[in-house]
């Protein structure tokens, strides 16, 4: 029931907000929903260990077919739902302070995205998973189109077609699985997959892999990403980079690992090489970027590559690292895109060449930016470090050469991030940057929680690793 309410509350609130015109009322509704959601999640978190029956919701959906409306939380789902609930609250808070037109509708669409994401991360039935996987994209598509600038319809169209095309291959795999097992339940399908004929196993592996690697994305399916991230309005970018890209990694762990283990054994290495190639490629491109949002976009792409690689090593460390990094990257990406938006609003520029010297006029922003940035470059005692360290160890254990290549990219990461920081905050200030005002309480309300999470999870990684450990150990397909 708790999981259901996590899904239903934002769904209803989102639909209500779409029909409200008053901005003040809309913001207070979204605030109340955020608080309720966090409260419900905290309660769910507290009963997770001993009364986990409370978290499950299971009703038949289609009687002729064994397809059920089954939501539930295990270790992985709990972490992902928590990430969704907290991040969406932060995004909602951030949006209210930005001067967009038609704020109530924007908030409503974000809440609908939250509902779909909670659905994705807690679905226990493959078809339910597929629905929410597709559904999550629709509100983001609308946000990107309606609040985006010129050309946005062309770019978001590319993104939409790309990802929907990918997930149709997932649908092929799911229908095949369903036909074999006559059940949509993830747990019971896990048991039957090893009995499938070889051809089906191959189709399954490639179909699922294609869907998830487009969503994340993994090299070479990333071509939609730079434009989509940099040309979409900030709310859409935050949702895409912070949460929607995580659906891909989540899919890898939840669906691909248990459903197509033989495929991973066979082709895992190639995919890891591709993923790490994307990591290196993304990092190098990011170094050369001049536009802030594009830079963050490529850094995001690089991080996703490492996560995919780590998951496919089929090791406990890799999986733990990837799960941890999903949370860390979610917060860091949202923080960075928000800071980019603040900088743009204050200076009217996103170009590194025209910025600089902001630290004098905006010291608070500098501090906040510094912390989020250090998290992103994986400095010890920040959240980025734990995940990256675990993932790199896993990749290195898997294959030393790939591991060293992946390690190099951390260096690149430090280069482009620090260059970003230096070119905006330090250096000589110009006419525009000298005049800007520092951030106020409104912005601090968004950035402080992010900074707290960055430091807290960096110092006490076990907060997350303990929960995910129970899930990772129960997975049973990992190399010992």
């Amino acid at each position, binding site marked *: 029931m708790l999981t259901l309410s996590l899904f239903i509350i934002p769904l209803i609130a989102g639909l209500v907000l779409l029909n409200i015109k008053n901005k003040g009322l809309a913001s207070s509704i979204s605030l109340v929903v955020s608080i309720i959601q966090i409260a419900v999640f905290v309660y769910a978190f507290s009963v997770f260990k001993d009364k986990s029956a409370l978290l499950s919701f299971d009703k038949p*959906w*289609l*009687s*002729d*077919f064994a397809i059920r409306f089954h939501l539930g939380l295990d270790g992985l789902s709990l972490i992902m739902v928590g990430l969704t609930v907290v991040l969406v609250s932060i995004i909602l808070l951030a949006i209210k302070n930005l001067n967009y037109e038609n704020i109530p509708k924007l908030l409503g669409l974000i809440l609908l995205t939250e509902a779909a994401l909670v659905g994705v991360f807690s679905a226990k039935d493959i078809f339910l998973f*597929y*629905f929410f996987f*597709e*559904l999550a994209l*629709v509100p983001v598509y609308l946000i990107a*189109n*309606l609040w985006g600038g010129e050309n*946005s*319809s*062309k770019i978001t*169209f590319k993104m*939409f*077609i790309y990802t*929907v*095309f990918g997930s*149709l*291959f997932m*649908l*092929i795999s799911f*229908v*095949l699985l*369903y*036909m074999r097992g006559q059940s949509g339940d993830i747990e019971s399908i896990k048991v039957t997959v090893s009995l499938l004929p070889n051809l089906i196993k191959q189709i399954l592996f490639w179909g699922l892999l294609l869907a998830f690697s487009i969503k994340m994305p993994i090299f070479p399916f990333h071509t939609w990403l730079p434009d989509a991230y940099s040309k979409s309005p900030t709310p859409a970018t935050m949702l895409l980079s912070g949460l929607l890209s995580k659906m891909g990694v989540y899919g890898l762990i939840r669906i691909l690992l248990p459903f197509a283990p033989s495929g991973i054994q066979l082709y895992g290495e190639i995919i890891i090489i591709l993923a790490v190639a994307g990591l290196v490629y993304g990092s190098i491109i990011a170094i050369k970027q001049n536009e802030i949002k594009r830079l963050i976009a490529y850094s995001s792409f690089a991080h996703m590559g490492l996560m995919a690689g780590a998951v496919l090593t089929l090791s406990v460390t890799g999986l733990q690292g990837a799960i941890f990094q999903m949370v860390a990257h979610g917060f860091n990406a949202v923080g960075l895109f928000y800071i980019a938006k603040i900088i743009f609003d204050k200076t009217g520029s996103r170009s590194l060449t025209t910025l600089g010297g902001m630290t004098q006029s905006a010291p608070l922003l500098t501090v906040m930016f510094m912390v989020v940035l250090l998290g992103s470059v994986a400095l010890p005692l920040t959240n980025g470090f734990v995940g990256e360290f675990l993932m790199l160890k896993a990749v290195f254990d898997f294959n030393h050469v790939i591991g060293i290549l992946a390690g190099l990219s951390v260096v690149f990461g430090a280069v482009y991030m620090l260059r970003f920081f230096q070119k905006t905050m330090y250096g000589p200030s110009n006419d525009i940057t000298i005049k800007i005002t520092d951030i106020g309480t409104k912005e601090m309300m968004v950035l402080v929680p992010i900074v707290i999470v960055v430091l807290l999870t960096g110092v006490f990684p076990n907060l997350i690793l303990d929960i995910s450990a129970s899930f990772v150990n129960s997975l049973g397909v990992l190399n010992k």
Partner: protein
Amino acid sequence: MYPIIVFSVSGLLMLYLGLSVSKKSLLPINLAFLLIGLLSGFIDWNAPGLYFNNMVEVSNTLILVQSVVILAAILVAGLSSKLFEDAIDHPAEYYALMQFAVVGALIMVSFQNLIMLFVGLEILSVALYVLAGSDKRNLRGNEASIKYFLMGAFATGILLFGIAMFYGATGSFDINSGSSVANNLPEGKIFFWIGLIFIFIGLLFKISAAPFHFWTADVYQGSPTIFTAFMATIVKTAVIFALYRLAVYSFSFEYDNWSKFLVIIIGLSMIIGNLTAVYQSNFKRILAYSSISQAGFMLLSLIGLGEQSFGNLGFYTLSYAFATISGFGVFLIVSNDQLVDGRPNENINVFNGLFKRNPDLAVILLISMLSLSGIPLTSGFWSKFFVLNDAATKGYLWILILGIVMSAVSLYYYFKPIRATFGSTESESITVSAIAKATLYVCAAMTVLLGVAPNLFRGLF
């Protein structure tokens, strides 16, 4: 059985009412007749049997299918509200013809005798030949009308030849006689196969499955939009159920042989329909080619031919009717608002900036297109899922994969109008008449509702 009687009488009444009643009150009267017909169908609920000297069958599932046909007619009539009052001199005649067409469609979904199949098909077709050419001074309408007429009559001829051969082989027009292929005639088997092939071809012409689809795009484009919507939904529904009845009752014992050919036709329909639609810029042509591929999907249930296939097909036609009618409805309103050379603008760019002009219409269009392309949480997803799953259980895995890949292709052209709605425009906002608005809302709401809970309708079968 009762709807057939009701509409035959009410169609005639309508013609007389056109002389005496004001134009404005004709639509409510028409809707009332259609509703009475819809409800009268349920008098026979739980009273299955054969009526009219074994000419027509009645059963609960057939009543449901008949309701789908009548519902589609009601929705199309709802869209006509402003249009008929403004533009047409004698709306009563069109309403009457639409009711007669519905009679034909109802006979086609429930016939028990091939004579009734022929009569039903002709009642439906002759009414539609007139409706297609109803815009008398529009040369495109003329062209569509004569093409539809010549191709329709040609297809009827082929169908009749098939029926005659079937009769030669079995000695009866009853659809259950298929299995009793005459023993005394050595040529019985040959006659039977010629009959089967010609009947199939004749009906595949009408449902516009490839390679018998070439007339579709021209006819859909040239006919007045409201009648295109009527054709796309009611004719398709009636013909596919006629085919299904024949496949189950008359031809099922030869399933292994003809299914191999049919599945190729399905594949062709999907490929030709979807790939050609990609290159179109006229919205009606896009929907025409999309309807070819939809016909392919509908025919999948003939490949399935299991216990659930009939329900799958019923769900498919209902979902298709909602999505198509709402798509055409939005288009009808928008294109009549923006004239080019005195005619409605039918190019896709007519949707430019719709989101700013009237967001409700844009959302309805979005839902309709999502449903036609089969995106989850619209009824279109389930309808495709049901039929594909059905066919795949018979071992045709490649058609499953082809179907899903073609859905992916279809996304491209279904999203063309949606992309246009986000564009910018200088035009003013659009006002929509109350009845048309209600119709569109119902269509969109039902599409989503059936997408979330398909069992609401699927469970009735």
